[in-house]
């Protein structure tokens, strides 16, 4: 039994420790000791009222910005992304002109697709009303009608280390679904819905306009958001829900809190079914919160299953998932909200009929968007300027995870009669527009929307897989893990990523590859030009029973301008095989063998790791002809022609 002074001492210790842990307790993350995981530059407090009939939102926002830039700041730019959904915007113009990857735009701009955000009042503590100081800017293209970036000039600068508190009142008008935003029927997606301050990065403000192909970039911080919606609505949001209050007017106010995230999104629908599960991350339990529409009730388990299995792989391969909740939204069918990532909230997408043999639908989308929690969410690269670091790396890890979960050759399509791998679909995407742009180009400066997609997603995945064949799969995985652990909750660049690969692999000879593949647009295409055997004494006549010796000549040809080390495997009729390594620099090379066996085949890249090669079909030459494939396709062709002709002849 303890004495009185001892009891007092113990109580004091408990009280202190409890107070200490309260101070450190994290609400939305499983951070050790509750410490912040990121450098929290911003703290948003938003109180919003959603009008689900008019598809509008009225809100007040308080933004605390901590000046950690080391220099005084007298100008603050804000993103007003919803203003992109107007015909005058750069987003609309670019989408109309070159095609976007998240929206389509014909000749006219449908009025129902008009959206916008209006700031009616802005002030800052110690600075008074700044509403009149607001002015639109267009740092990328000078389009002053764009209105997706607004800046205010303060009368006096915010000193380094100081915090400035802005107060804004704003009004949103959501468009009919466009570019992962807006409404469809009674479903409303609140993405990029509030004024968001730019990032002071590399000595300047980085606050780009919203473009047809660009995504987002923001500082880490906390988000304390109250959203008032009609009672019948169910809402999923970033962070965790920490409160709910019923109001007298048939509405309810939901209170969400997110920390160590750089954006906040929500989705609301009266038709959500809730499906929850728990995933045990290496940092603690994570609530998987799937909001699936009633029309897709049969897909709940598929959503939860792919989410959980993906998180398991990421946790195992790349690092721990630190948040307490991961929310998955099943977006309204027929909308443009399929497949989008926000911190701790993703939209996936499916339809009621999608079979399990098509993982390229539901599973690939859910996997891809979750992957962004790592490559964008935590490793918060600049999506405007280096989109390959989020979309590209994520496409690479998507292919890895999908192959591990659904089979190397069946991770996209798995019918009994036809298959496709997710990785190969990435490569096919790359081949659709392989040489207009380098991976490193700013997202809005790509030749076209298709080129942006082909290079940013497809080529990056292909380049990294090819790199994997050089440094080895375990090394590549180790490098990505190191990159994640080193740069999570920061804003790294492409150089940081490539340097990490060099450091982890110990390969200092990769720069040539990076120059050609990452910064360049060269095309890799090596071919077996010929593979033939003839008697050594070729001038003598030989009988059919001639056993040798034979002289075999195999020639390889570099058809592209990309120089890459080549391995070729030559097989002979006696079962022997030879592997040759060529630096690939010259336009061609010839290998000669004298053996008592004839050549059977010659194959470039026999381990099938060089996905960058533009043409798989010329990578090998098999001496013995096999017409199965060509006749099979000819049969398809014939059938299609016959059937089509019959349909056409129906007019008679």
């Amino acid at each position, binding site marked *: 039994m303890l004495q009185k002074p001892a009891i007092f001492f113990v109580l004091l210790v408990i009280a202190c420790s409890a107070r200490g842990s309260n101070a450190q307790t994290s609400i939305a993350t499983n951070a050790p000791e509750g410490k912040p995981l990121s450098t929290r530059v911003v703290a948003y407090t938003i109180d919003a009222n959603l009008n689900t009939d008019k598809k509008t939102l009225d809100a007040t926002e308080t933004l605390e910005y901590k000046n950690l830039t080391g220099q005084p700041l007298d100008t603050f730019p804000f993103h007003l992304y919803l203003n992109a959904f107007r015909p005058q915007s750069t987003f609309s113009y670019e989408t109309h002109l070159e095609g976007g990857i998240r929206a389509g735009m014909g000749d006219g701009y449908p009025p129902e697709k008009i959206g916008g955000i209006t700031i009616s009042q802005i002030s800052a503590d110690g600075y008074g009303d700044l509403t009149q100081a607001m002015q639109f800017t267009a740092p990328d293209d000078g389009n002053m009608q764009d209105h997706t970036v607004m800046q205010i000039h303060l009368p006096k600068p915010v000193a380094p280390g100081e915090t400035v508190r802005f107060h804004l009142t704003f009004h949103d008008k959501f468009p009919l679904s466009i570019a992962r935003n807006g409404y469809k029927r009674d479903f409303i997606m609140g993405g990029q819905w509030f004024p968001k301050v730019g990032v002071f990065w590399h000595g300047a403000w980085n606050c780009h306009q919203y473009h047809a192909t660009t995504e987002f970039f923001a500082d880490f911080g906390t988000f304390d958001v109250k959203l008032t919606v009609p009672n019948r609505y169910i809402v999923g949001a970033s962070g965790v829900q920490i409160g709910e209050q019923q109001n007298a007017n048939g509405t309810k106010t939901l209170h969400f809190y997110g920390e160590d995230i750089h954006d906040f999104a929500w989705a609301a629908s009266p038709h959500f079914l809730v499906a929850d599960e728990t995933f045990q991350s290496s940092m603690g339990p994570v609530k998987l919160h799937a909001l699936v529409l009633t029309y897709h009730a049969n897909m709940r388990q598929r959503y939860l299953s792919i989410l959980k299995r993906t998180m398991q792989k990421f946790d195992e391969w790349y690092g721990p998932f630190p948040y307490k909740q991961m929310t998955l939204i099943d977006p309204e069918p027929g909308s443009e909200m399929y497949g989008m990532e926000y911190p701790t909230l993703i939209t996936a997408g499916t339809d009621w009929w999608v079979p399990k043999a098509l993982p390229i639908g539901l599973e690939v989308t859910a996997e891809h968007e979750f992957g962004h929690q790592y490559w964008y969410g935590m490793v918060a690269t600049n999506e405007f300027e280096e989109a390959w670091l989020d979309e590209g790396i994520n496409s690479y890890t998507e292919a890895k995870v999908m192959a591990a979960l659904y089979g190397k050759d069946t991770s996209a399509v798995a019918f009994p009669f036809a298959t496709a791998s997710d990785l190969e679909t990435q490569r096919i995407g790359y081949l659709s527009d392989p040489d207009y742009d380098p991976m490193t180009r700013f997202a809005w400066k790509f030749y076209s929307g298709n080129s942006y997609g082909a290079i940013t997603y497809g080529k990056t995945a292909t380049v990294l897989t090819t790199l994997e064949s050089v440094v080895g799969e375990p090394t590549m995985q180790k490098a990505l893990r190191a990159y994640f652990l080193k740069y999570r909750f920061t804003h790294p660049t492409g150089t940081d990523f490539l340097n990490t690969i060099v450091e982890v692999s110990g390969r200092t000879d990769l720069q040539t590859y990076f120059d050609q593949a990452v910064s360049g647009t060269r095309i890799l295409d090596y071919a077996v030009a010929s593979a033939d055997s003839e008697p050594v004494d070729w001038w003598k006549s030989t009988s059919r029973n001639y056993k040798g010796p034979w002289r075999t000549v195999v020639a390889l040809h570099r058809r592209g301008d990309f120089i890459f080390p080549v391995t070729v495997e030559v097989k002979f009729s006696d079962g022997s095989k030879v592997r040759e390594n060529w630096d690939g620099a010259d336009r061609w090379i010839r290998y000669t063998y004298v053996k008592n066996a004839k050549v059977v085949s010659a194959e470039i890249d026999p381990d099938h790791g060089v996905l960058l090669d533009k043409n*798989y079909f010329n990578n090998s030459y098999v001496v013995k002809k096999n017409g199965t494939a060509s006749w099979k396709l000819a049969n398809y062709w014939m059938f299609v022609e016959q059937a089509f002709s019959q349909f056409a002849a129906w007019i008679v």
Partner: protein
Amino acid sequence: MNPMLAHRNHSTLGTGLRLLQQNKRLLLWVYLANLLTGLLPALAYHRQVSGILDHSFAAQRIAGRLDLSYLIELLQHTTKNGMGVYALFSLLALGYCVFSFILAAGIYYVFATGERPTLAVVERSGIEYFWRFVRITLFALLISLPTLGILAVLRNVLLKHADNVYVGRSFFFISMGTFAIVAIVAVFLRFWFDIAEAYVVQLGENGDRRVRRSVIPAWRLLWERFFSNYVSYLFIGILGWLGFSFFLWFWAVGVPPRLVGLAWVVGQLAIVCLLFARIWQRGMATAIVYSAPASEPFVAASYPVVPTLGPTSVIPEDHPQDAPQDAAEPPAAANSIDPASQAG
């Protein structure tokens, strides 16, 4: 006239099938024409891709369980250099359409006259009726395009509104339901003009070359025993599609991917199902035309007349005394003749 068409009391569905059975060679000619249409571009395509595939390991990803990404890559390579194959594809489809005018006319002619379905007969009659069939097809397009166009527009408007309310399965069923309505109307129009085509041949055999005279009578014929005839016509079409779908399904799941020969046979069976159904439909249309009052001079002559059934003044003076094959039909068959059909 084809004696088989004298069985006015038989169902048009059965008569159509018997016409086809009696003239199996017609199916052969149509199939051969269709096969030739498919064969030419297939050989051209084979020539184009065999150089890429026949000596490549990568081709095994196509020869076995079809790897779609390899197929798409191949298409990327061939599209860039081989637009000729695609042009040939379209040209031959068009050619088949044109040739179908000859085939269709030949089929109706053989069905109507009972002549042996030799290629020469089909060809001769097809050429003879070619322009008349072109004209009747133009009539058909003149009526079908606006009708189906309006329906398609209405369907789009309806679906646009439905999209605001119905989602998922319910929208799918609305979409399919409205599509089915358009399809039913399209089949109705096809049925009408199949009858009109059969009528054109009947008129032609009476020395009347006027195509426009077939459209209105065909419309009237369409409405006689409309429900049973139309359902039968639709049934034949659905049966053809079911057969086509069955063989496609079997091709997809039951044929080992490397057995190209077996795949070819199964694919051709699927094609034959459609051809079979189409010729059967033409047979049925012929049966309808020749069972109609308008064809009394041809039909009634084949039957012994039972006076108790009503007026039989349609028997011509030159009624042949030598009984045709069908004269051996039991009187019960004659008793079942619909008096109404003789009233005109």
